[in-house]
């Protein structure tokens, strides 16, 4: 049987239909910050079901980490695009026409768009309070700073940097920036909801079925078991299909309409739904003349937009990876998730790591240059090795940063001539703590896997099926892995952070053992402990670390500012490879997405309005943008499985940035624009003159 993805038989959430279903359209605030005075839907027509603020005032607030969101903006719209009403009609065209007839009166309020300004004590507040969520996505201690826009503060306190900087012969102190970006999963967000006897049934592309179920149960005041979520495969997600996106609005509309309601977002609405955190990161790092690192301080401002979503988690992971995989005796980090009046920012492939790698790895090259050291040698002198303790206090095991760096350097011919070339290394945490359950059922001479891991193109279903077949000693064709359905699959934390193949693999070993013992059904569960104190950053940040390095070679046209990547190589520690073709695809896809981040992708704003919310003005890499691109999967006999969904992305922009910097062109902001390159040419020539 041919793969449904090549025959046209594949079905995604947007393809699911129910008889009598209505089509939804969201009415959005045109202001970045405004009081919502009134919503008048009297012109929308009798055949249209309208969801207005008064319909949802009695429902509870939600949020995966901070409960700061209502189903509709009740009294205040907090970004341009914030849903203030929604309509459902017989066709998408009728719904669109009806939405245009909903009259909303606003009173514009002062808005704030810069995360550094927004973190100041006198900034206008986006939210008055920050209630910590009871969703288990709020898995760490949150530290909202009362009376400010900081919805989480994370710190590392290891040693005393001031003492350390006193020992330094050279100190670099620079501030870097990264732009907001859109996931541009090809399949838009789509959800279909139906109520029956007070129970909610939902079809939606989601990476987080159990977190979603928990938040919806809270909103509607029903038990989680009264909600059934079906998860068709996704046409790409990259972090965007996490937690509650459009599901609460669709479910509230369906309840009011007493009919099934479906919503499929228009492309432009994706930029209003979830993006990647823009960040400002200041790095101060010092070394002795012999190239030994002595101290580092990092300050991160992660702009989480009008609602926190998982921004606190992003700021924490950005913070705990910001020191980089180096031995540094004195490290302090201060990372904050900050509300602004931009569209919400949340999970995005790389989860805060790209931003801190960009900043820290550019600072490393600056330091190497001032010390007169080769950037590779400088890194290898300081890199974490087996058994070292990271600044969180955790002992590092299965450590391969040096191998990754050396492989990346080889891949771009670093040793022949390092000019026009750059390197960068990443340490990426995996969701810690977390829990995963999986069941195997016998079905004649076949086996059915019951597993909440969502398929979004990353190949998880294939990898887990291969692992199951291997453990069961049968051909993979005899293993069936149906779409996750929360009524049928055991609990799992979520399909994020490149954790699923590893943790489900461990749970599977137990499930297959249990099946052997009990015959018809086997269940296995794995619980991964750990976590950090948010005030000191001490504890276990990651059960194991994803490790990679990238090398880039560039050509820069100093007349036009155009940067051309002529060679790109990544080396990723894979431990044990389960599905080779899938592993290669994940590396290649991550690298190509990283190139988009490096050179193309930036969400532009004017007064808080996104001005490039379409695929013509917002460019993602096409065939024409892919340079000669190679990669290594570093394997180790008996090694743990390392998820590969993200690791090759974060080091790519920094490798490109360092390659540009090797030509004397200092660019501090992503993406690397022609304007910034031309300014860097002027800066370099100015210094010489």
């Amino acid at each position, binding site marked *: 049987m*041919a*793969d*449904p*993805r*090549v*025959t*046209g*038989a*594949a*079905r*995604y959430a*947007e*393809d699911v239909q129910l008889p009598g279903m209505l089509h939804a359209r969201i009415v959005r605030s045109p202001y970045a910050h405004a009081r919502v005075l009134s919503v008048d839907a009297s012109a929308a027509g009798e055949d249209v079901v309208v969801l207005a603020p008064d319909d949802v005032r009695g429902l509870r607030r939600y949020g995966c980490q901070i409960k700061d969101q209502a189903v509709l903006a009740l009294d205040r719209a907090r970004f341009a695009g914030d849903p203030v009403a929604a309509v459902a009609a017989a066709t998408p065209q009728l719904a669109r026409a009806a939405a245009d007839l909903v009259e909303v009166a606003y009173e514009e309020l002062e808005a704030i768009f810069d995360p550094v300004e927004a973190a100041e004590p006198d900034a206008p507040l986006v939210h008055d309070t920050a209630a910590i969520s009871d969703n288990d996505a709020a898995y760490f201690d949150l530290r909202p700073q009362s009376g400010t826009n900081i919805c989480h503060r994370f710190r590392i306190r290891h040693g005393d940097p001031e003492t350390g900087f006193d020992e330094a012969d050279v100190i670099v102190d620079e501030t870097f920036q990264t732009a907001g970006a859109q*996931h*541009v*999963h*090809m*399949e*838009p967000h789509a959800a279909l909801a139906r109520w029956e006897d007070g129970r909610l049934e939902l079809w939606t592309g989601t990476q987080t079925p159990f977190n979603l179920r928990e938040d919806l149960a809270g909103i509607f005041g029903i038990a989680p078991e009264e909600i059934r979520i079906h998860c068709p*495969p*996704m*046409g*790409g997600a*990259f972090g965007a299909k996490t937690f509650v996106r459009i599901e609460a609005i669709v479910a509230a509309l369906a309840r009011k309409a007493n009919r099934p309601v479906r919503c*499929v977002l*228009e*492309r432009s609405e994706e930029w209003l739904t979830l993006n990647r955190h823009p960040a400002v990161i200041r790095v101060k790092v010092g070394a002795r003349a012999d190239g030994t690192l002595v101290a580092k301080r990092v300050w991160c401002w992660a702009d989480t937009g009008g609602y926190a979503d998982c921004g606190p988690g992003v700021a924490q992971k950005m913070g705990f990876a910001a020191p980089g995989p180096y031995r540094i005796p004195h490290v302090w980090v201060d990372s904050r998730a900050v509300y602004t009046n931009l569209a919400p920012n949340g999970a995005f492939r790389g989860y805060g790591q790209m931003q801190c790698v960009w900043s820290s790895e550019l600072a490393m090259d600056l330091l190497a240059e001032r010390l007169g050291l080769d950037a590779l040698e400088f890194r290898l002198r300081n890199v974490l090795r087996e058994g070292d303790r990271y600044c969180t206090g955790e002992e590092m095991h299965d450590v391969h940063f040096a191998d990754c760096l050396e492989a990346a350097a080889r891949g771009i011919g670093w040793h022949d001539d390092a000019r026009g070339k750059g390197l960068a290394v990443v340490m990426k945490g995996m969701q810690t703590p977390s829990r995963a359950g999986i069941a195997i059922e016998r079905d004649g001479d076949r086996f059915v896997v019951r597993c909440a891991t969502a398929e*979004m*193109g*990353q*190949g998880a279903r294939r990898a887990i099926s291969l692992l199951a077949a291997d453990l069961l000693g049968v051909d993979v064709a005899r293993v069936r892995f149906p779409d996750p359905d929360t009524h049928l699959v055991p609990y799992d934390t979520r399909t994020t952070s490149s954790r699923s193949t590893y943790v489900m693999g461990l749970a599977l070993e137990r499930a297959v053992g249990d099946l052997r013992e009990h015959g018809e059904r086997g269940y296995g569960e794995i619980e991964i402990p750990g976590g950090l104190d948010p005030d000191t950053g001490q504890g276990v940040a990651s059960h194991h670390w994803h490790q990679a390095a990238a090398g880039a070679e560039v050509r820069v046209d100093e007349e036009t500012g155009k940067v051309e990547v002529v060679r790109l190589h990544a080396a990723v520690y894979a431990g044990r490879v389960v599905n080779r*073709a*899938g592993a*290669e*695809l994940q590396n*290649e*896809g*991550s*690298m*190509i*997405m990283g190139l988009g981040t490096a050179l193309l992708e930036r969400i532009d704003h004017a007064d808080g309005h996104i001005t490039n919310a*379409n*695929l*013509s003005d917002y460019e*993602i*890499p*096409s*065939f*024409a943008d*892919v340079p000669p*691109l190679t990669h290594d999967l570093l394997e180790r006999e008996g090694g743990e499985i390392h998820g590969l969904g993200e690791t090759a992305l974060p080091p790519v922009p920094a490798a490109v940035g360092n390659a540009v910097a090797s030509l004397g062109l200092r660019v501090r902001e992503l993406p690397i624009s022609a304007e910034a390159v031309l300014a860097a040419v002027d800066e370099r020539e100015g210094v010489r003159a």
Partner: protein
Amino acid sequence: MKVSCTVNGDAVELEATPDEALLDVLRRQLDLRSVRPTCGIGVCGACTALVDGEPVSTCLLLAPLAEGREITTVEGLGGDHPLQRAFVESRAFQCGYCTPGMILSAKRLLEENPSPSAHEIADFLSGNLCRCGCYLKIVDAVTRAAA
């Protein structure tokens, strides 16, 4: 209004309003789900169908303009077309959302140029976007199908 055309070899009569895109009509009336709404402005290629053999963004083609034309979607290739086999053998997809459009554009390329170079493949397919970033393996698949 009624639009008479051929879809995947069958003569059909489509019911469409004058302002409706062929994309929506193919999906709604014929349940051809392989033409996929994505960018809505003809730049991503996920809604590609062959119209008289040429790859066309059906999100931009008004349905009435399909009158008398021959339309092919990936469902019309049957499942055992050399390109479909090559995409599977080369593992040239991840989420699969853009794959039908890729295959149809590649079909036209191979009719024009039966043994394209990697550069020619990339150039011809640059109007089809793949966010999963399967580009290297897609070039490999098209090369394999051409062999």
